[in-house]
């Protein structure tokens, strides 16, 4: 496929609360090519997470269009959106959101046991171990989250995001709860996915991590601008 994988045009999101409506995203344009890594930086409350929610089909834009791989998905019904989330997206959050009663392997398998198609147990196991191996923690497959460090838990979360071979990885402050060294290792793991053609959109406060991405976008009061390297 040629052309951009993600194309947002004039995306606007307005928060309609009890007070005056507040514009969270104001005519955002964003293009992400296959295999490209993009960092989105900005202050707290600038709309980064809202932008990621729209990219990940958690939310819909009030105005503007969202084209994914040539298909307009701005107004996708929830059932189709769920299917697309499963097939095209992988998510990594600041908090790892691992289920403490499941092992690392079972947490990763969660993305495969989601009602979107069915994989036999043996194939599931192979895919899970491959994903854990990609992030270097296949040996921890049988461990529960309580017995793992923060970095290891985040790697499990990344393996969960990668296990379905997504076309886009969306990461929301994935290093926010980690020390610098562990955070760097996590970014390494995320970037390694881009070498296999997966695009990465990273929301971060950390300038060093942002600098490692192919592009950096700045979001200020709902307006997205490209930051040109100095």
């Amino acid at each position, binding site marked *: 496929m040629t052309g951009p994988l993600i194309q947002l045009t004039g995306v606007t999101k307005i928060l309609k609360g009890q007070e005056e409506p507040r514009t969270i995203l104001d005519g955002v344009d964003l293009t992400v090519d296959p295999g490209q890594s993009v960092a989105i930086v900005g202050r707290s409350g600038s709309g980064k*997470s809202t932008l*990621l*929610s729209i990219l*990940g089909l*958690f*939310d819909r834009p009030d105005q503007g269009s969202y084209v994914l791989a040539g298909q307009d998905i701005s107004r996708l019904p*929830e*059932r189709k959106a*769920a*299917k*697309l*989330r*499963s*097939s095209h997206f992988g*998510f990594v*959050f*600041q*908090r790892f*959101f691992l*289920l403490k*009663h*499941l092992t690392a392997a*079972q947490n990763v398998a*969660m*993305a495969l*046991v*989601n*009602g*979107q*198609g*069915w994989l036999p147990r043996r194939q599931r196991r192979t895919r899970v171990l491959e994903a854990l191996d990609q992030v270097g923690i296949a040996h921890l497959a049988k461990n529960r989250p309580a017995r793992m460090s923060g970095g290891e838990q985040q790697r499990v979360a990344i393996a*969960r995001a990668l296990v379905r071979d997504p076309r886009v990885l969306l990461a*929301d402050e994935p290093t926010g709860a980690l020390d610098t060294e562990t955070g760097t290792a996590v970014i390494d793991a995320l970037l390694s996915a881009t070498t296999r053609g997966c695009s990465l959109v990273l929301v971060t406060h950390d300038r060093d991590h942002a600098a490692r991405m192919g592009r950096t976008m700045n979001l200020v009061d709902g307006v997205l601008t490209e930051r040109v390297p100095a």
Partner: protein
Amino acid sequence: MRRLSGSYRSALIIGIQGIRARKLRTLLSMVSLFLGVLAVVVVQAGASIAERALMSDLELRSGYDGTLMIDVMPHEKSPQIVTETLDGRTDALAVISLQAIIGEPGVSPINPGGSPFDQTGWGSTEVCDDAGNCVPGPPTGEAIEVALTAVTGDLLKFRPLRHVSGNWLDFSTVPSLSPRLVINKEAAKGFESHQVPAEMRVRGATANMTPQIVGVIDDGDVQPRAYVRQDELTNWVPAGKLSDPNMGMPIQVLTGQGGPVEQILTTKLRAAGIESYANLIESRKQMEDQLKLMRLVFLSMAGLVLLIGVAGILNVGLATVGERVEEFALRRAVGTPRMLLAGIVLAETLLTGLLTAGAAIGAGVAGLKVLSMLLGSSEPLLRDVQFPWEAGVAGIIAGIIAGVLGGFIPALRAAGIPIATVMRA
């Protein structure tokens, strides 16, 4: 077998994981539901056992369900027509009712009228002629009066008479001149407590007979009764005397419904001017009408107890969903459809309901076994009683209903959890 779809299998796997992760909560839900399901199992088991016992008693007294009973009115030709029609047939038999006194000749029986031995005042010792003129009878002596039932074939095909001791009437042998009798338990009681000579008087007989008692059965009758082969009786009582047109009982013909006997017999009887009435034995229908209301009342009470259990599951389910908001939001983020989230919660409550049903059925089986062991000897209803499968089915249905009802609202809540929860956390 068709395999479950991916969604069902996913719901089942995640449901089992959820139950394993929250064992205590599942146990508490099961405890709250247990009494309700157990109540349903007990009511259903009780109703089924009572129904079986009642059915068994009804069949014992009146015959197997579906048997056609033709009452042939007393007439001097009735025995002959019936005997000729049924000759050589195995699909029908005739039952002729008479009275017999066994014991000392020329005395009145100790139980006039063939009354039960612990009851008096059934009949009188007066002796009456065919015109109905009665005179005081002879003094009471060592003789027992029984209801005598002459049968033309194997009655066990139509009535489940219960063997007590000895043998049943053998129709494969040549008719004996000494009529073989099979007596019921009440008659056996009389013969046990009274030593009587083996001489049998039957009205209309050419001479007194010497009977031989070959067995004892339980026929559910409170009256002392003896069963005899009709051909052994007719060695001594002319066929025409078997049915007294003035005082005799109707001859009963038992046959299967829709068989040829009914048509042939009724045609012949009509031609001879003899009335007959056919009745189909429908014990189950009659009994179900009686039991319906009782079962409804008890099941309603059990349903109320079950409803309390459902409230327990509902309560625990809502609390659990409240605790798992992030998990469900995360599952939605990785592509799990809302319907499947609802399915996961329903699978958990359904499994809880089924586990509870299993426990309640197990308790029911064990309880019945213990009851049978403790009270079986004094209470025939509980002797060697088997756990009715209907109670098991009712328990499983109750478990499923409780699971669905208790899980429905939590499932809706789970399906409505906003996906953005994971972003805001």
